[in-house]
């Protein structure tokens, strides 16, 4: 395996980690807002808070890891993406910052508030939507080179159906992932009211998820035939992912084996995410940038990989400890102790 392939696999894995944990977080904010607005905050807020509080900072680090690693392994991405993404990423950053900081302010300093909960919930949907534009841009067709500098064509971007179908998919996926996960988490907390409510949401969002996923594949066909063909060449991965999706919803429907259901959920998205990634190979920004020509020098690459291995040896046990104490600890999940500082 070449060094650049190792690099991109590691980064893609971390991005996947971010997508999943952040989806749970963003969706939870939305459901919390929903329950506050419908005066049923007693049902959901507790469970959501208990899950989110100890892990929110860790979620953010996954994102930081991804973009720092990207610039490290593929420094040219800083030039291409840095130049074109100023506006879209700045908007995501502002939303992300307000949402993240106010989560802490509200949980520890200020009392709950309806307007605030709504803004928090909506921000959680706008963030994935605005980040998802980066995927759209990477497909090519929206960037032109002017005097050797890349420039983003905003008009083409915002009038393309591909953009909007990716935006829709990202939002629906967030709501679905979060609902399925929280069904399981609330079930473990023996909070059956919350679990049943989340189950309903998960079922509601499953159909839109399937429709928007299929819709995107169709969009691709019109947008960029080359990329469409690459997607078709890994059709079997997408197919397995689809099967896992059906099994997940079936378990959900039958109220059976929620633990297995969450594992299947993660596997379904992992397969789809990696299938998409493989179909993108070798382009980072179609057609200007591939992982080969943007790769850093060999010395730096080896140094980064060594640091990654050492770092992982430190992190994986720590992460396991974190999950053991908060996600897999029965007493904590059920809220038996309040041990907050």
């Amino acid at each position, binding site marked *: 395996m070449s060094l650049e392939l190792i690099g991109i696999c590691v980064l893609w894995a971390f991005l996947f980690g971010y997508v999943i944990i952040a989806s749970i977080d963003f969706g939870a904010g939305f459901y919390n807002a929903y329950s506050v607005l419908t005066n049923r905050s007693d049902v959901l807020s507790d469970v959501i808070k208990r899950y989110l509080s100890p892990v929110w900072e860790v979620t953010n680090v996954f994102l930081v890891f991804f973009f*720092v690693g990207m610039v490290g392994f593929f420094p040219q991405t800083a030039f291409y993406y840095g130049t074109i993404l100023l506006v879209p990423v700045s908007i995501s950053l502002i939303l992300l910052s307000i949402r993240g900081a106010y989560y802490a302010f509200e949980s520890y300093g200020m009392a709950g508030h309806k307007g605030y909960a709504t803004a928090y919930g909506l921000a959680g949907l706008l963030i994935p939507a605005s980040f998802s534009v980066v995927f759209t841009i990477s497909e090519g067709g929206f960037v032109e080179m002017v005097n050797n500098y890349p420039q983003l064509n905003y008009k083409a971007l915002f009038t393309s159906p591909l953009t909007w179908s990716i935006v829709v998919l990202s939002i629906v996926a967030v709501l679905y992932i979060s609902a399925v996960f929280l069904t399981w988490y609330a079930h473990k907390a023996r909070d059956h009211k919350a679990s049943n409510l989340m189950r309903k949401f998960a079922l509601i969002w499953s159909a839109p998820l399937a429709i928007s996923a299929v819709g995107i594949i169709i969009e691709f066909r019109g947008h960029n035939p080359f990329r469409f063909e690459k997607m078709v060449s890994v059709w079997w991965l997408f197919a397995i992912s689809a099967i896992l999706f059906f099994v997940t919803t079936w378990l959900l429907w039958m109220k059976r084996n929620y633990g297995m259901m969450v594992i299947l959920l993660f596997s379904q998205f992992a397969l789809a995410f990696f299938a998409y990634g493989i179909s993108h190979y070798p382009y980072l920004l179609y057609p200007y940038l591939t992982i080969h020509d943007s790769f850093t020098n060999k010395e730096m690459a080896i140094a980064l990989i060594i640091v990654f291995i050492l770092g992982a040896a430190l992190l994986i046990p720590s992460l396991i400890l974190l999950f053991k104490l908060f996600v897999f600890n029965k007493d904590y999940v059920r809220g038996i102790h309040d041990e907050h500082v």
Partner: protein
Amino acid sequence: MINDSAVFWSRILTEVTLSFHIIYATIGVGVPILIMIAQWIGIKNNDEHYILMARRWARGFVITVAVGVVTGTVIGLQLSLLWPNFMQVAGQLIALPLFMETFAFFFEAIFLGIYLYTWDRFENQKKHMLLLIPVAIGASMSAVFITVLNAFMNAPQGFDIVDGQLINIQPLVAMFNPAMPTKVAHVLLTAYMTCAFLLASIAAYRLLRGSTHEYHKKSLYLLMKLGFIFAVATAIVGDFSGKYLAEYQPEKLAAAEWHFETAPNAPLVLFGVLDDGEVKYALKIPFALSILAHNNPTAEVIGLDQFPVDEHPPYYIHYLFDGMVMIGMFMVALSLIYLLALWRDWTFIQTKWFRWIVVAGGPLSVIAIELGWWLAEVGRQPWLLRGIMRTEQGATTSEYVDLMLILFSGLYFILAVGSILALQRMFKNNPIENEIARRKERDFV
């Protein structure tokens, strides 16, 4: 292709973001150590007050960490958004410490989550305190790694440029550049010092507001003692930083000292104004610059005459330097007087005016941090990578940077107000007297 307005606005936006982040980042670096010290003393002396100190500081810390994390995420991405040409080059040379930093963040974030949510979960308090060690190490290491990167910008090495190509790249040599030892040490010590004086400000303020609780007196004493140690160390390492500059970046030192002609027996110029190249109304300390630069009152110090005018840093950094050093000296003196007075039972330290000065010490230290960074960064101008890449070459070419400046300024305003309100409410609703009373009640039941 250089887009002048984009260069200008990128500089302003970087400046605003970093100046804002550094306040919260400094708190993030220093406070975990102080929490650890307080908790340790509490456990060792079986004194509940110190344990509560740790607990209350940790509660406030959650708020400042939140702002530190989000503004750090912003600056991390802004580096690529505003300086894409620079990051493309720097990525090849110095990505290693930046990558290491993310592991430090990870480590810190994980254990901070655990620490905050397992208060009283462990039978043995010591075990809980041990969780702070990775938090403190993670926070300090993130400061170390980012400062290594900044040091590299001041003293780039570990590569060769042949025909415009970067070759012979040695990531470790780039990291261990000559600017690194003094810079890292100075940044860490100033963070610890600033946090000690900031928390001391709060204790002094509570005493001023009429609280007579022993808790505040204990905390003030502990913090002034620690602050004194860190302040003295800061001044010593600051002196080494001056020697580093004299050797490797003489133009920065010369501009900071208004030392225009290369000369021996150089005096240290304090304050004053510059009138047509003439220094007026300044306080001159004979030989002091030669001592600062080379530890020798007669040594020759390189002046700005050795550099082409278009490579001179802006001369106003002189005031930044003076301000930082004055505050440093002042804080050493203040904490020393406080400790002497306690020892000798002088009572003036309990007067209102003296306590107000202690209250001012925290904000003053933060100002010194800002002045120090502006000195270091503006003093590096016109270079982004000293001697290799000028600032305008690194900047973005895209439009709308000015608009982003407005948006982000609004963001920082909201974050500043929100964090202050949240902290205020947190402690106002739960003063120490109530918390101690409640604990007593609970133990009684």
